[in-house]
């Protein structure tokens, strides 16, 4: 099935077409389950004025944080950006804009973007700064705010296994935002640990069907851990 073979062999191909001003939806939670090589390719390409949608913004020298050094990010939509001193500095200097979004709302906004649902109501954030300027509606006597969906020119995600058709399986909690991000990109690129042949993944155990994935590249991951915490 030539038309369904999503595998590319270079990062240049994987991120081909990205341009200044694009919105990039990125999977990952903290440094867990992030498309390391795709982020590095965006750094290499020096694409500017990006809007990045991701739960976090990496750390200074790893993950999305590496895009801060050359001021490639204009705006970030995230739930938590507290791990990154350079980010803080750029925020104070007005170089970068941030739209803080509750984590569950962010996940749902990505899902809605992929699912053709332009808006949904949630109680999350009602009565807080998050609700400012948003429509409020009561259901069964409780107030909810209207949140709108998010889509982007690109989604960059990290999976464990992919087949050539782009069907994906995620490993443990490295799943996180990746499945929703995958649905919300006009072009979705998956960086994966292993590429298998179609048929090797059990159909009902596929987390992301290949219809959402445009390109698959086999990556080589450092998998840095933010907080190694152990017991005896």
């Amino acid at each position, binding site marked *: 099935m030539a038309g369904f073979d999503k595998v590319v062999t270079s990062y240049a191909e994987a991120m081909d077409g990205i341009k200044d001003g694009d919105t990039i939806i990125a999977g990952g939670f903290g440094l*867990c389950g992030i498309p390391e090589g795709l982020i590095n390719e965006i750094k290499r390409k020096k694409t500017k004025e990006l809007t990045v949608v991701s739960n976090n913004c990496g750390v200074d020298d790893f993950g999305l944080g590496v895009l801060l050094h050359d001021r490639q990010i204009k705006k970030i939509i995230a739930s*938590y950006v507290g791990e990154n001193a350079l980010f803080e500095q750029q925020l104070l200097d007005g170089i970068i804009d941030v739209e803080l979004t509750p984590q569950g709302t962010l996940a749902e906004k990505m899902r809605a973007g992929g699912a053709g649902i332009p808006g949904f109501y949630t*109680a999350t954030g009602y009565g*807080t700064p998050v609700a400012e300027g948003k429509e409020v509606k009561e259901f069964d006597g409780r107030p909810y705010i209207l949140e709108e969906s998010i889509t982007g020119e690109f989604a960059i995600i990290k999976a464990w296994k992919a087949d050539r058709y782009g069907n994906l399986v995620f490993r443990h909690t490295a799943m996180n935002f990746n499945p929703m991000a995958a649905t919300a990109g006009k072009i979705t690129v998956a960086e994966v640990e292993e590429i298998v042949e179609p048929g090797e993944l059990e159909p009902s155990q596929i*987390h992301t069907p290949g219809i959402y994935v445009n390109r698959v590249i086999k990556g080589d991951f450092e998998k840095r851990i933010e907080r190694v915490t152990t017991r005896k």
Partner: protein
Amino acid sequence: MALSREQVAMRVAQELQDGYYVNLGIGIPTLVANFVPEGIEVMLQSENGLLGMGPYPTDDQVDADMINAGKETVTAATGAAIFNSADSFAMIRGGHVDLTVLGAFEVDQQGNIASWMIPKKLIKGMGGAMDLVAGAQNIIVTMTHASKHGDSKLLEACTLPLTGVNCVKKIVTDLAVLEVKDGAFHLLERAPGVSVDEIISKTAGKLIVNGDTPQMQFA
């Protein structure tokens, strides 16, 4: 005497019931897992997508792909389920988690909570806290009753940007256990050796004291 962090966690753990699904925030709430009462089993939900969080891994179990919402390496308990972030917050927002325990900067007598932002200091973001307080059936806040400078954290109205409104039902501080209802804090228990007067003096919001206030009991 004011409770230690561990004692606060021990007291919160008395609120657990067998079969509870529980989300524990960062800090003191995390310690609650160490004091689950005998004969009771709870399952811990971690909002990055894990139901059935196990203990921290041993050195050789450490896996970068297995972390909790605090970004610490963890293990999955037997019978755990792992899912994506949208499904995780569907679980939270939909009210399926029985109890959420989290810290706060301030709580007020309306049950409002401020826990995520101090203006002019660094804005780190709310993470999942706003979803948790909007979705949980039952929320317990743990914090010190007053700041280091002696300023009460139990207020008539929160002064900091809110995390959620009308949501906090119970507060366990280093001095007392309080219920929040009908626009007031209701004193339920005091820490061993702490006087009702001290609690009154350190509670800025409306406080209802009904007769004798029993001391917390620790087994």
